[in-house]
């Protein structure tokens, strides 16, 4: 009986049907990089140039002469991506192609440390580009990750007063795409901090990666929010009920050693962060 297309789709997410990214990349099963690149391109459109430093993302758009991203990709060396972005932006502006977005696409949090200062410099120069940091939490100290769960990157850049800074998660594709869509329409340096599930690093099975990314938001470890001009805070997803952080930490092999006391400390830290975030959003 189900031979004709449904008239009213019972969809959980309203996202654009346009598919820019194709299949054929070479990332690990269950990784969030290709999903985030796919959602980002849905939000940004075809007029986009990606600048990718040496990181996991270098695999995300395929190998050799083929690209799965279906938009121009520029591979930059370690720690030079922001300079490359500045150059490409300047060339485009010179040609009058102001509608083309240049995106610095950096994955894994080691890269976050390397690219951070160059990105700061670009911000000082008031460059017009989108900086994406796919954070797989690789730099989290496995022994006791309390401090590392604080969403540092967005806060630092918001304190510098950049035009748009936001967090996004692959488990919430509609919110993800909305943020890229919004970032596209703003001028200046924009930062999007993506929480990226990494099954080999987190020691989870590949099929659970979306579920874990969702739990990170539901436990409020990684709140989804945005900051405009360093002032206007908006919390985009408020979980119906806060799950205990335990639900996010326990299934992961990398946190098996945590004692109950340590998870309690993390829980308190998360609650404090969440409260202060809500306060800032209410201001």
């Amino acid at each position, binding site marked *: 009986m189900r031979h004709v*297309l*449904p008239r009213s*789709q019972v969809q*959980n997410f309203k996202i654009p049907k346009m598919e820019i990214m194709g299949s054929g990349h070479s990332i690990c099963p269950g990784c*969030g990089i290709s999903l985030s690149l*796919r959602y980002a391109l849905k939000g940004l459109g075809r007029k986009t140039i990606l600048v990718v430093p040496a990181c996991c993302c270098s695999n995300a758009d395929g190998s050799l002469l083929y690209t799965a991203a279906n938009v121009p990709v520029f591979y930059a060396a370690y720690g030079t991506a922001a300079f490359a972005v500045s150059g490409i932006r300047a060339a485009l502006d010179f040609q009058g192609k102001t509608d083309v977005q240049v995106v610095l696409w950096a994955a894994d949090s080691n890269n976050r440390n390397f690219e951070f200062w160059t990105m700061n410099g670009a911000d000082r120069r008031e460059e017009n580009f989108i900086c994406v940091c796919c954070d797989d939490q690789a730099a989290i100290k496995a022994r006791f990750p309390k401090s590392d769960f604080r969403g540092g990157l967005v806060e630092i850049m918001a304190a510098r007063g950049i035009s748009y800074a936001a967090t996004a998660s692959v488990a919430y594709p509609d919110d993800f795409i909305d943020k890229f869509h919004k970032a596209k329409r703003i001028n200046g340096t924009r930062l999007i901090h993506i929480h990226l599930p990494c099954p080999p690093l987190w020691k989870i099975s590949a*099929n659970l990666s*979306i579920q874990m990314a969702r739990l990170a938001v539901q436990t409020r470890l990684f709140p989804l929010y945005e900051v405009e001009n360093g002032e206007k805070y908006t919390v985009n997803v408020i979980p119906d009920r806060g799950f205990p952080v335990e639900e996010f930490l326990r299934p992961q092999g990398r946190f098996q050693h945590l004692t109950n006391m340590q998870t309690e400390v993390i829980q308190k830290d998360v609650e404090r962060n969440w409260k202060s975030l809500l306060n800032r959003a209410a201001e």
Partner: protein
Amino acid sequence: MTQKTEQSRSPSEPYSSPHAQVPERHASGPNTPFQHPEPYFNDKTSPCNMGCPAGEDIVEAIYLTAEGRFQEAWELILQENPFPGVCGRVCPHPCESECNRRELDGAICIHAVERFLADYGRSIPRSRPKSRPQRSKQVAIVGSGPAGLSCAYHLALMGYGATVFEALPKAGGMLRVGIPRYRLPRAVLDQEIADIRALGVEIRTNTLVGRDITLDQLRGFDALFIATGFHRGQKMDVPGEEARGVFSGLEILKRVSLGEKIRIGEQVAVIGGGNTAVHVARCLLRLGCRPTILYRRSRGEMTAIDKEINGAQEEGIEIICLAALTQILVRGGWAKGVEFVKMRLSRPDESGRRRQVPKKGSNFWLKVDGVVSAIEELADIEFLPDDIKSESQGILVERGCFTSRKGVFAGGDVATGRATVAHAIGSGNKAALAIERYLKGEDFFSIPESLGTDQILPRKADSGVVRFNDLNPVYFKKELPVPLRARPVKTRVKGFKEVYSGYKAEEIVTEAQRCFSCGVCNMCDNCLIFCPCIAISRRRGKFGYKIDVTSCDGCGICVQECPRDALSFRKVP
């Protein structure tokens, strides 16, 4: 490039890669020579479909209703069940007790959807189901209840001639004389029986097999189906039972249904805890009597449908539980009072059930003008010859419907024991399948045991039943079911108008959209949205998705994130 990868997966020509020695855990991406389990769309059986004794394809009908395709949904139900209007009203809906949504916020009101679809179907110009070309074989059916008529319906659709013999002046069996009009308006029943007649089924009323016609006279037919039901009231075995003013529950219901007069006093004691007892009490209330239901066991053990018991209590009918009848007081040939003894529950016996033990000295009297015995009914099978084996409970059958005489089948309550209208319809369906096989000359043992399923049409679905744990509950939010709307007590006890009112189309569409669609894809796009390999795409202009297995890296996110468990993994050979 795609071609190359396809070659690499072909089993006949193994792809030799320089990286063939890489351990399997590093394998990923389309270029890998390693094989991983691959996802595929695999519709499974939803619990409601499994729970329906009549074999309806409920999940599909609800999907069509949610889409607003009411006529298709109605026709889909008619493929298995000729009585959607009846079942939407009187079936105790075992489908709803199986519904997975119960675990979240309450089952889908499947009966409301069915009732709406039947009402909708009555309101549109009907397109009759297409029957297959006529065949010469003729089948006789004894009893025009739900089992007999659904068997006749399916045989007629298959092209066989069916003749139904009914002892009462009107067809419908228990639906007509056992279920009062306030629950099942006669217009609904008449319409659905007329639809069966329109297929060419002949119904001979006022023909009691055994009196007006003997079973041997039916030998001219190629097959015989017996579905006479339970129409004989049981004796209560108490002194004073023979007095005037003592009725059997079925007799009261029959007279009320057929519009005959009953002479019964004002204060009436109704003995029993089944549907008959509740029906009798509510009918008598509508006739101006003051009935009291007295039941031997506890309230929880009453076999009547909960909704009906609650309805009776709303209407002010007193139910006294744990009271056993000991004798009927007779004055001048008339029943004038009843004596009861209070019962108490003893410790559970080996079977785990608590037995009732009479409390000594707890006897009490009720002054009554009439007594109705509505305890269990029995099968009336005295007309059967000896070679059709039977016992006091009914006819003995093998594989659901085969009796001990060749060519004679039995179904409905008389063969399956006391059950509901849906069970009777399912039994009729099953018998129709068996009779068709028999008439085609197939051997008894060629008939598969899987004939135990009640459905007439085969379905493309895995037989595994999807339970709540198999679903991904993250994607379902709480939404309350459509409320049941009863007419106010004051007006409804004044006549036999239907107690529960119908539903609006918008309500039913909203209700149908609550359905989880357990195990059956409804194109919610989740797998497509979350596929990291972009291996899943919509089929152009058709329902469903296709999976490009050469791009798939076997991560399993689609299987995990499917809200309704419509995807499965399989090992690549």
